[in-house]
């Protein structure tokens, strides 16, 4: 009786859809929300190779945090991370926007050619990193050759091993990876601006630049906000490129927080340190994600 009641509840009642949501949410709680909380917990504990196997570890208070702030590499890595995010997004967005505007024009095959760019999005970042590493190669790399033939540089640039360039090499490759996604999302936003608005502006005497400044940009506001937020999120996820190109080196010159966290946990086994960096970064990502979700909801209601 009870059993058939349950079966009926699952087949016919609210139970069916509720069960589907609960199953997925449970999975996410176990494999995403729990680790999230666990990171925060570990950032307040002493965790190293010896306490790894036990559940009860010494409470460390804020020492993990203060230790971290006092490390000599802390400030440079924070600074690198900021440069990494800012430059990546600035260029991804500008190039992506320019391409989106270009492909908005009506010409044969525009959708197809635009789609080709997505190849960059779909390739594993690690492989992309390997290819860029070859492009960046100092003595025989094709990038140095191209820049020399264009007369932009004289000698060779040792992109990956020169501390002055290493971070920018990673940024260049990351921009390459991010362009397609920016371009596609911005294309969607641009396609959503009704054509008659432009026609009305043209009737009012606005030229191309004025139309871009007074119509395109303001109407793209919400999309741009969402794209920037997603850009921050994706840039902070970028690990594979760093691993393939520089491993954060030389001497942390190209290290960024998300890679540093992993290095501490898995290479120097300072697990509390890794967890502490992760906690701060996750807090940042969640703040950005909340802004993103809010802005998308506002966009939909309008």
């Amino acid at each position, binding site marked *: 009786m009870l059993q058939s009641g349950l079966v*009926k509840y699952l*087949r*016919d*009642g*609210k139970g069916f859809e509720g069960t589907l949501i609960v199953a997925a949410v449970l999975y996410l709680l176990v494999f995403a929300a729990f680790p999230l909380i666990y990171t925060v917990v570990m950032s307040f504990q002493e965790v190293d190779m010896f306490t790894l196997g036990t559940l009860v570890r010494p409470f460390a208070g804020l020492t993990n945090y203060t230790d971290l702030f006092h490390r000599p590499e802390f400030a440079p890595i924070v600074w690198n991370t900021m440069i990494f995010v800012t430059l990546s997004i600035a260029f991804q967005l500008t190039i992506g926007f320019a391409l989106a505007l270009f492909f908005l024009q009506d010409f044969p095959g525009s959708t197809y050619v635009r789609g080709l760019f997505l190849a960059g999005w779909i390739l594993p970042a690690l492989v992309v990193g390997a290819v860029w590493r070859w492009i960046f190669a100092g003595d025989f790399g094709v990038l140095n050759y191209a820049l020399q033939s264009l007369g932009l540089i004289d000698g060779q640039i040792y992109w990956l091993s020169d501390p002055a360039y290493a971070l920018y090499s990673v940024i260049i490759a990351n921009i390459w990876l991010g362009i397609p996604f920016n371009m596609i999302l911005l294309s969607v936003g641009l396609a959503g601006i009704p054509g008659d608005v432009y026609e009305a502006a043209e009737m009012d005497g606005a030229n191309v630049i004025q139309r871009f400044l007074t119509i395109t940009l303001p109407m793209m506001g919400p999309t741009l906000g969402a794209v920037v937020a997603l850009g921050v999120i994706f840039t902070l996820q970028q690990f594979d490129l760093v691993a393939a190109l520089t491993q954060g080196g030389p001497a942390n010159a190209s290290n960024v927080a998300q890679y540093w966290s992993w290095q501490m946990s898995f290479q120097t086994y300072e697990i509390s340190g890794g967890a502490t960096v992760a906690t701060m970064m996750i807090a940042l990502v969640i703040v950005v994600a909340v802004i993103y979700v809010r802005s998308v909801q506002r966009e939909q209601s309008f």
Partner: protein
Amino acid sequence: MNQIEIEHLNKNYGSLQALHDISLDIPVGAFVALVGPSGCGKSTLLRTIAGLETITSGTIRVAGEVVNDKAPRERDLAMVFQSYALYPHMTVEQNMSYSLRLRRRPKAEIDERVGEAARILGLEKLLKRRPKQLSGGQRQRVAMGRAIVRKPKVFLFDEPLSNLDAALRVQMRSEIRKLHKNLGATSVYVTHDQIEAMTMADLIVVLHDGRIEQIGRPLDLYRRPANRFVAGFIGSPAMNFVPAEVTADGRTIAIGTGTLLKIPRAQEPGRKVLAGLRPEHLRLDGSGERLTATVDIIEGTGSMTFIEARIGSDLLNVAYAGTYETEAGAPLTLGIASDDIYLFDPETGRAL
């Protein structure tokens, strides 16, 4: 005997109460229209009957049996949706036979019933098509066919004609009536169009803000509206409402300019009321109770003339069957039979 009995039904969506204490009996074989403005809860009521919405409290009985906790598939009701809700990945034939196939009826029976429904609705040539390849009117017929093949106890219609053009709508009205008569099943028909309700239904249920305002036969609602809302909703063009005061003898009312009108039943002297005058009851020959007005706007279609007339600060719509020529600003003498004057309480809206 009643096919459907609803008692003290309440339905909440979170904090919003969509239906308030609905009680309604629907006799076997009746054609009942649920009518009311958009958002008043018609679809919600229909969907609770179908079992598509759970109810918050109350009981629903179908053929004497409480169905509160029954799934839609256990209720033996067929439904025609406003958007038709045809399965896009199935042909017309598959759409119509779907419910029978789910019930594992023998192939021969399915073919026969689908064939019969297709014949009745004139869909024989379209059986192999997909919904995408049909016109709006044809889709509407397929939706009906899908309901007919079931031979259900009850048909539920949710604004089935509102996506059709005006001419087709009028034609389908009478076809649905005819079908109802031939099939003999009970029909519950939701519409926001009072003309559809008036022309099709045996019984009309007027809903407003989730409450039943009045239940009655079409002409009863027209003649004896229980309140101001029903009076204003039923009838087209809508009834005029003019503030008035009952005079000392209780047998007449005075409207804005001081004009006195005799009323059908005596009222408490000095009472403030709202007088309801139907546009088609206002005569242009001044017979009966007289009102002097000026013409504001005049529109003629040949067979009908619509005049917006002004008495003091009150506006009256007049509908005259025939042609009448005058011009804006001209004086107009209107008349109305005393029996055609409705009175309502200005606060509660109740008919007096």
